[in-house]
């Protein structure tokens, strides 16, 4: 294990919007093969951290390495599931078509998706239990179904690292269970999963790794070692008691 490169290595990362630091001097090592939650209060910079890893936001200092190289050289190793609200669901397209978009990265410019890409997309739809909705216009899907479509789109990318921004937001309990089962399956297959998560109660049940974030990095490590009241209090700033390890 020692010689293996971490999935993601972040050094001295600082990001600011209009001179206000959103992330301050973050050092973070995410080992390969973990299912990790990023937790922290609103405005802690959780989404920003994910977007900085992806190079969507340019940091004012520091660096991010994906398997030892800058993200730009590892584009095909990373899949991203943005927040559901980040797109316009009235866009004229179907569930299948959205999932196919996940294959565009491997196609590159100009080349069109064909039968092979369609097959991959259908398989991914089946995996998230959405095959019967493949021809449904995306605005006709429920919030949970839309989230599953986004997950399927990330699955077809067949990446090594999955970055997810609040995949459980606004989904019902059934969908949440379905999504977490898929995530656990992916981890079993050796993938690294990084999930922005809000529900502290479910952290020990769902995840094996956790990062506490509040502008600064508070702690990062195995859930069983560091998911405790002390770190929660440091992160959320109030005396936090959560039922852990029961």
């Amino acid at each position: 294990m020692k010689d293996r490169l971490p999935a993601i290595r972040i050094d001295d990362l600082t990001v600011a919007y209009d001179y206000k630091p959103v992330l301050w001097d973050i050092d973070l090592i995410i080992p390969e093969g973990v299912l990790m939650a990023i937790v922290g209060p609103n405005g802690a910079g959780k989404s920003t951290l994910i977007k900085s890893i992806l190079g969507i936001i340019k940091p004012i200092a520091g660096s991010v390495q994906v398997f030892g190289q800058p993200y730009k050289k590892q584009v095909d190793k990373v899949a991203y599931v943005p927040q559901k609200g980040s797109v316009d669901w009235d866009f004229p397209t179907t569930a299948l078509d959205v999932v196919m978009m996940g294959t565009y990265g491997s196609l590159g410019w100009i080349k069109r998706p064909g039968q092979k890409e369609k097959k991959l997309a259908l398989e991914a739809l089946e995996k998230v239990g959405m095959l019967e909705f493949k021809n449904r216009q995306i605005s006709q899907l429920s919030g949970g179904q839309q989230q599953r479509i986004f997950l399927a789109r990330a699955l077809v990318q067949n990446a090594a690292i999955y970055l997810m921004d609040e995949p459980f937001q606004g989904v019902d309990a059934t969908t949440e269970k379905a999504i977490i089962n898929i995530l656990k399956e992916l981890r079993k297959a050796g993938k690294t999963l990084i999930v922005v998560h809000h529900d502290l109660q479910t952290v020990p049940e769902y995840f094996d790794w956790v990062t506490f974030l509040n502008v600064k990095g508070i702690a990062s490590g195995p859930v069983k070692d560091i998911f405790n009241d002390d770190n929660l209090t440091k992160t959320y700033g109030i005396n936090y008691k959560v039922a852990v390890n029961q």
Partner: protein
Amino acid sequence: MTSAQLEIQLIGAIVAIACAIPGTFLVLRKMAMISDAISHSILPGIVLGFFITQDLNSPLLILLAALTGVITVILVEFIQKTGLVKEDTAIGLVFPALFSIGVILIAKNANDVHLDIDAVLLGELAFAPFDRLVVDGMDIGPKSLWVIGSILLITLTLLLLFFKELKLSTFDKGLAATLGFSPAILHYGLMTISSVTVVGAFDAVGAVLVVALIIAPAATAYLLTDNLKHMLFLSCCFGIFAAIAGYWLANVLDASIAGSMSTVLGIVFLLVYLFAPKQGVFSVFFKERQQRKEVSLLVFLLHLQNHQEAEERHVNHLREHINWQKVQAKTVLELASKNNLIYISDNIVSLTDKGQEFTDEALLYITTNKVTAIEELKERFFLFRG
């Protein structure tokens, strides 16, 4: 029909298609008003280009003017990024400034420039056939037909090559960026094509009406389809229809051709807005009314199922008990009996076997929150809908 008439309609139709294609993407990107900004602010570019080239159809002039369009977009984004004003305000600040520079340039050099403000605003399609392209002494058609035709050819080629990329970056900019398709390149590519198109169409339809050709066909098509390719195709069809119908309307009314084209587009949009099968105003109104009636019917059936005692199922009691007005109670009763869900004897209402079966199944779907299954259930059981 004379050849001049044919040529005018042809130019109109090609202008309409060339505008409808970038228009579709602008509408989906919620950037429709940026076309308004571009169409106005290219004026100084056109005037300056004319000083240099002395030819309104010169490719250099088109490129210069298109550059002004792209600069407009950059300026708007720059002002907006300061966070001091919102995007619509930034648009409203930039384009009048550039447009007025163009107006002053024209007024100051009225004698040299073959342009007047009317033509700038509304265009003059009727004169297009007079300016011919002559090669080796041979007349090969109106210049503006060649200009806008070439622009359309470029647009179509780019659309075919980059359809996938445009779709992706329009739907999900973040994903496009992470997959290595620079949203900035696609954004400015689209802005450049829009600017070139607007310049090419400017001569024919002017600064104000070109906006109608960009936005209206796409907005109309958006109401009719949920497939991007169909939307592009429909936008083009509406554009062509408006060009031809607009020409003949102008003929009858002896009015501006561009004005008539825009009027036709406005009417087509209004008709689709009102009568579109799925999203039209009337269709939505009737669908909601139908749904209200069918929900009432379901409430009524559940009540019958809940109460075996005769006095709870008496027609008059139902009226008081469920607290419906006479008319509503009557329509619901009628709908239920037309569909053989209930029978009435001695003014006592009872569920039929079919009604019983329907209610049981509906109840199951309601408790398990399967709304779509209820719709399918209605399809199976109802002979008549509300």
